[in-house]
């Protein structure tokens, strides 16, 4: 399906969702999803305690748990903010340790670059992490064949990196970016990096063939994300996820509901999530699509709401003001 067809279908689905027909079949009242905006003007602050307080306030229990942090590393570019900033990863890792996690690991199966030196085995990242935090190259390692609970791609199973399959708690830590095929890339799209490159290649072209949106949705139904923290301190606008420009927003978006984190981030970026196909479809099985499903906490969203530049095809997905 081409991008224009995606958008056309998104508009139809959005209208249906607005009428209450699709999300949860109009039967069930959606859960209210807390989403917290944490002001973070730059990466210089030790953010561990603040993040721990918010996660605890959201009821995330980590005591004695095996926690996997899944940042987004695609490529290393000297000027472009493509990857989740190491300071955010270190802050979240520190927060998990504060909350009593038995094990904290940072794992990623980087989508373009095979050499783990440029992602989770980067000395720069390791130097910022607490010594107790492990770094796991998910591209090169064991995988567990896991039944695909979505069924849109036609793939019977996903080969999930073993640390993903075995984690008690998975925290998705994406960068706030536009995406040239999907519109935005946030907590749910970040799940591509749970699949090892030795099974899927670099890039994970099989997922492109089966439909990027289908793949995001199948993964979102198969892999449980327990918490999402979006690095919007500096995001990427324009031709994301690798060719865009830096866009400072100055906030982290935190939620135990990944779709709610994604839709809130999309609104902060100036996009109407009801016009982004995969977010609309994810609203069929995850709470948090509509603004009224979300309870915003923390800073006033007006402080951060902005308008991300995007490719022509996604200008139709713009909306707002939302706050």
């Amino acid at each position: 399906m081409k991008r224009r067809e995606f958008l056309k279908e998104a508009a139809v689905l959005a209208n249906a969702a607005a009428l209450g027909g699709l999300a949860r079949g109009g039967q069930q009242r959606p859960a209210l999803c807390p989403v917290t905006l944490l002001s973070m003007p730059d990466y210089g602050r030790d953010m561990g305690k603040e993040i721990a307080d918010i996660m605890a306030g959201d009821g995330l229990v980590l005591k004695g748990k095996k926690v996997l942090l899944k940042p987004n590393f695609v490529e290393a570019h000297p000027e472009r903010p493509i990857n989740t900033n190491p300071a955010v990863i270190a802050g979240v890792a520190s927060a998990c340790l504060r909350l009593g996690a038995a094990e904290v690991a940072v794992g990623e199966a980087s989508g373009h670059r095979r050499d783990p030196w440029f992602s989770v085995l980067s000395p720069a990242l390791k130097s910022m992490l607490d010594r107790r935090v492990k770094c796991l190259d998910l591209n090169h390692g064991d995988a567990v064949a896991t039944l695909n609970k979505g069924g849109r791609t036609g793939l019977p199973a996903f080969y999930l990196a073993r640390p993903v399959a075995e984690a008690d708690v998975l925290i998705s830590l994406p960068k706030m970016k536009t995406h040239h095929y999907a519109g935005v890339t946030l907590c749910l799209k970040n799940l591509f990096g749970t699949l090892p490159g030795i099974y899927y290649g670099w890039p994970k072209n099989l997922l492109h063939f089966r439909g990027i949106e289908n793949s995001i949705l199948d993964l979102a139904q198969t892999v449980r994300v327990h918490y999402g923290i979006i690095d919007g301190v500096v995001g990427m606008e324009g031709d994301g996820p690798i060719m865009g420009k830096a866009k400072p927003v100055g906030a982290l978006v935190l939620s135990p509901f990944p779709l709610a984190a994604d839709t809130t981030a999309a609104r902060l970026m100036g996009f109407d999530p009801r016009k982004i196909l995969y977010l609309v479809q994810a609203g069929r099985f995850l709470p948090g699509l509509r603004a009224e499903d979300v309870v915003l906490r923390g800073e006033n969203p007006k402080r951060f709401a902005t308008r991300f530049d995007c490719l022509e095809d996604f200008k139709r997905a713009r909306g707002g003001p939302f706050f």
Partner: protein
Amino acid sequence: MITALEKAALVNRLLSFALPGGGLPYYRQGGPSAEPALLALLALSASGAAGVSAKPLLSWVSGLQNADGSVGLNPDHRSQGLWLTAPAAVVFHHFGLKEARDRTLGFVTSVKSVTVANDPNIRQDNTLTGWPWVRGTFGWVEPTAWSVVALNVCGLVGHPRAVEGRAFLLDRQIPSGGWNYGNPGLNDRELLPFWDTTGLALIAVRGKTDAARVRASLDLLEKSQEKIVSPCGLAWTVMSLESYGRDASRLKQRLFGVMNSQPDDALNTAHFAAGLIALAGQKVFLP
């Protein structure tokens, strides 16, 4: 100068990762996987240590070969990772396993990437056939380069697939030099090269390509030496520069230093094995 004793210590360190069942994991405490075993076998061969120590690895790898000649990722997922069949062909060739080698070559030459019509907005020839990571998908630089290397090493330099594979690789070369996963540019902007992929692609096209066509890539590696810091990047840069007769002695010393200083928990055995091949100086990826 790296002494034979120092190289032997590196070989022993690599072998300390070997699993009781004969395989090798990428990382300590992982399960066995084909790529580290294949590169370790080549490292043992290049280091002159392919005696008794190679036998369990070779037997384990041979056991991964499927009826159709392909070699999969590991015993539990034999149908996955079919791109590993090409490096397996190189290993079977060097270890004199002719029947196994010929079966891998049969498989390699049968696998084709999906091609599509050219897009005027993207300056690459999408009609060229290369090799995919996964059957039924597009061709990408690394699996194509491995397949061309396998055909070259096994005496099929002139095979039509090798010829088209080289054309594919040259087409995906970034105009200012180097290769990445397989897109030289997007929307008229060049993408960044990767050191490891650049090294492998240069080795694949060597000998049958006009030197001028790859000069920018070789020059890029040469002038970027100070920026290349990872074991994997250093290993493939050393191998490719030496394949073209360029000096890589300083890089070799750095590679040796990096390999020695790597903590066990960050040591990727496939990259470590590639480092050993580079330090050995035996050109196992050339005909």
